[in-house]
C-alpha cells in the first residue's frame, strides 16, 4: 500500500481512528489497539488503549492473544476487527456480539463468500488458548476454532437483524482494503447517508427565522457533517451523536443511519 493501513486517510481522519470510534460506539466498552512493537500509530482518542504485540510476524492469532489478554479482566466478550474495514457498521458489531452472548465462544460471520475472523466476536477467555497455539506455531484462526464453540453467522443470519439489514444491506461492513485500488475505490464512494439537525442559534444559519428541520447529508465524520450543514464546528459548538454521546471531536466517525445534532456549547442558564 505504501502507507500503513492504520494511517490511511479517511475523510479527514484515518482508518484506525474510524475503526476505534465505531467499536467504542458499538460496544460501549474499552477499546484496545494491538500494534507491532514500536509501530507508529496515528492519533487516537485518549481513552483508547494500545498494547504491543510481543512477537512480530506471527499473524492474527498472535494479535488475538494479545488483544483478548488485555481485556480478560474487564470483559467477557470482545469484538475483534482489523483496521482496514472502512465500512464497518455498529449494527454489524452488535449483531455479531449477540451471537456470543447466546452461548458460543466465537461469533464468526461468513459474508461476501468468506469467513471473517477479523470481524468476529470472541470470548476473552480464549486468550490463553490463542497464546498456546502461537507458541506451537499453529498460527491460523482455524486452529483456534477447533478448540471452542463457534457460531457461524451466514448472511441470512446476519440480516435477521432488521437494523443491520436496513443500514448495511450489502454487508459492506466486511469489505477490507488490501490493494491500492481497493483503497481508491472505497475512498471514492460518498460518505454514509446521515441526518443532521441544528439547534438554537445554529438553526438560524441560512437566514432569519431559522431552519431546524432535519436534513439528510452524506458524511463520514462529524466534521464532514458540520461542513455539510454549514456549521462552523468551533469552540462554541458541540455535536450529539444519535441523541446520546456529545463530542467536540470532528473525527468522530459516522455510519449510515446516524443522526447528528449540532448544539451550542454554551449550555445552561
Amino acid at each position, binding site marked *: 500500500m505504501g502507507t500503513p493501513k492504520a494511517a490511511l486517510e479517511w475523510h479527514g481522519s484515518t482508518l484506525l481512528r474510524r475503526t476505534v470510534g465505531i467499536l467504542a460506539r458499538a460496544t460501549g466498552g474499552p477499546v484496545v489497539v494491538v500494534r507491532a512493537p514500536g509501530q507508529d500509530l496515528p492519533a487516537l482518542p485518549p481513552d483508547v488503549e494500545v498494547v504491543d504485540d510481543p512477537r512480530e510476524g506471527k499473524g492474527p492469532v498472535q494479535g488475538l492473544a494479545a488483544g483478548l489478554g488485555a481485556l480478560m479482566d474487564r470483559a467477557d466478550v470482545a469484538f475483534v476487527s482489523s483496521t482496514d474495514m472502512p465500512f464497518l457498521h455498529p449494527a454489524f458489531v452488535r449483531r455479531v456480539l449477540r451471537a456470543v452472548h447466546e452461548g458460543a465462544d466465537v461469533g464468526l460471520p461468513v459474508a461476501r463468500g468468506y469467513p471473517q475472523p477479523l470481524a468476529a466476536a470472541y470470548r476473552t477467555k480464549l486468550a490463553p488458548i490463542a497464546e498456546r497455539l502461537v507458541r506451537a506455531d499453529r498460527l491460523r484462526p482455524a486452529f483456534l476454532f477447533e478448540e471452542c464453540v463457534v457460531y457461524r453467522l451466514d448472511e441470512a443470519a446476519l440480516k435477521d437483524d432488521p437494523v443491520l439489514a436496513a443500514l448495511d444491506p450489502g454487508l459492506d461492513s466486511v469489505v477490507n482494503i488490501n490493494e491500492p485500488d481497493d483503497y481508491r475505490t472505497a475512498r471514492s464512494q460518498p460518505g454514509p447517508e446521515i441526518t443532521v439537525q441544528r439547534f*438554537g442559534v445554529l*438553526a438560524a444559519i441560512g437566514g432569519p427565522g431559522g431552519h431546524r428541520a432535519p436534513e439528510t447529508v452524506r458524511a463520514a465524520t462529524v466534521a464532514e457533517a458540520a461542513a455539510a450543514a454549514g456549521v462552523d464546528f468551533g469552540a*462554541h459548538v458541540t455535536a450529539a451523536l*444519535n441523541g*446520546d454521546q*456529545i463530542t467536540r471531536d470532528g473525527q468522530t466517525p459516522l455510519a449510515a443511519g446516524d443522526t447528528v445534532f449540532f*448544539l451550542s456549547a454554551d*449550555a445552561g*442558564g
Partner: protein
Amino acid sequence: MTAGGYFGRALVVDASAGTSDVLPLPDELLRAYIGGAGLGAWLMHHLGPPGVDPLDASAPLAYVFSPLVGTPLTTSAKFAVVAKSPLTHLLTDALASSHFAIAGKLTGYDAIVVRGAAAKPSVLLIDADGVRFEDAADLSGLTAAQAGTRLRQRLGERLGRGWRVAAIGPAGERGVRYATISHDGRHAGRGGLGAVLGAKRLKAIAVRAAGKVAPADPDAVLAAARDLRARSFGPATAKYRELGTLANLLAFNAISTLPTRNFQAATFDGAAKLAAEDLSAMRQVARHSCASCTIGCEHIYAGRDGRQTRVEYENVFALGPMCGVSDPDAVLAASARCDDLGLDTISAGGTIAWAMECAERGLIDAPWLRFGDGDALLKALDQIGAREGLGDLLAEGSRRAAQRVGQGSAAFAPHVKGMEMPGYEPRTLHAMALGLAVNARGADHNRSGAYEADLSGDLDRLDGGDAHVAAAVETEDRAAVMDSLILCKFLRGVFTDPFTEWASLLSAVTGWDVDGAELRRTARRIVLAKRVFNIREGWRPADDWLPERLLAEPLRLASGRMAGLTPERLRAMIDAYYTARGLDDQGQPGPARLADLRLS
C-alpha cells in the same frame, strides 16, 4: 483604610423597633468573602440565631452588594438576597440584576440586613436621610410591579427622584415558601426570600443613592470594562443574545435532558411548540438588557392576549414540559401569573407537577388537575398565590406537601433539600446529578454548573466518575466567585483563565494584590461556609441526595442506550466529592478547615 469598591460596613435594620445599627466589615473579612453570596453567607452565620425559623421575626434577611457594583464592568449591577430559606430551612441566596443594586450600594453600605418585623404592613426606606418606615396598607395585595410603580411615584412626588424598589407580590405576603422578591421586572427567585420579607410585614424596600464609592485604580477598571464589553459581544454569549436561554429547550429534548411530566420522561412530545427557534420569530416583541449589561439576554414574548412576558428556559421548562403543557399561550400566561403573584417558577412548576401526578394516581382529591391542562395549571397557581384550597398545601413546596400526603408520594417529589429541581435531567447528566445532590442551596443550576461538563463532550455524561466529581467541584467553585464578585454567569464563556482574570478585576477595583490562587481558596471557603451554616441549622448527610425516582427508574434513550443513575454510583461520587472538598465521610469539615472560615 477600606479597600476600593467597598464602604466597609453593613446596615442592620431592626424592623420591630424601627431602628438601625452599623456593622463594621473589616478589610480582611471582605477579602475573605468578597461580597454577594459569599459575604451573605458570613452575615447569616454572624447575625442569624442558630435554629431560627426563617419566618420568625428574628431571622435576618440581607441584601448584599459587591465591590464591582457601580463600576462600568458589564453585568456587574447585581446583588444577592440572602437568608435562611423557608423552603429548605437551610441557607439560600438569590441573585438579581437591576438598578436596585447600584442605588442600594450607594446608600453607603456593602449590605443591608433586616431583622425583626414591623407592627403593620410597611415599606422600608433608606437614603441619605437615613432609615425610616412608611405605611404600606395601600400596597397590600398588589403585584410587585404594581407596588414598585406606585411606590416610586409616591416617593418621587414627595421626596424626589432616584428611588429603586424591591417588592414582594401577594405570594410573599401570604407566606408561600417559594415567593420571590422583584425589582424592575427581575426576581430574586429561589428559596422563598419573598416569604421572609413578607413575614417582616415589609411589602418593599426602597433605596436611593446617597454617595459614591471609587475603585482603587479607575483607569485599570475602565480598561478592563472596555475589554470585557468587547468580549461580551462575541460568540460565547451569542446564544443568550440571539435566542436567550429558551434555546436550551429543543436541544435538551433532543438529547433526553428535558425533564417532563414530573421527571417521568426526559423528552417531551410538545417541545417543538415551545421552541425558541420558532416562537422567537412569532412571539418575540423586544429584547432587553439588565442594568449595566451588554449581553441583552432578556427576550420578551407576547401571549395571544398581548400580555408581554420575559421568557427563559427555566420558566418555560417548569410550567411547560414539567407539567406536560405544550400550549405556548398557557405557558406564557402561567409565567406571567407567577410574576404577578411573586412565585418562583421552578418551584411552582415542580410542585404543581408533583400534584398533577398525585391527582392522576388518586393520592389527592383534585380531579381537575391533570398533566397537560393549561387551565388547571393557571388555577393551581392562583390557589397557591391565595393559599386557598389545594393551593394552601402546594404553597408549602413539594417536600412538605409530600410529607402530608404520604402514600409514597415523597418518592417522586422533585426536590433536593426541599428545593424543586431545575430543568436538567440527572439521569442523563451525571456531573450535574452530583452538583444537584450536594449543593448547599438544594437542587440548583446556578450554584453548580456541572452540566457544562456533561454537555461539553469532554466526558461521558452517562457514566459518572472521577472526572464528573472534578467538574462538579470546579463549577461550584467558579460559581462561588462569580456570585460574590458579582458577575453574570452568562459572561462565563468569555473568560479563558477565569480565576486569574477575575482576580485582576478584583485587584483593579479594590487595590488588593489578589491572584487566581487566592481566589480559588476564597471559592472553597465560600462553598464551605455555606455547608457549615447548613450543618449548624440541622443538615444531615442524607440531605445530600436525589429523589428516589431518579435512582430507581432508568430512561431509554433514542439511541437504545439505557440511562440510569444507581444509588451506588451517586454514593461513590458524593464520597469522592467529600474527599475533594476536604470533608470527612459524613460531609463534615475538620477543625483546620473551620478555622479558615473566620466565623468566630
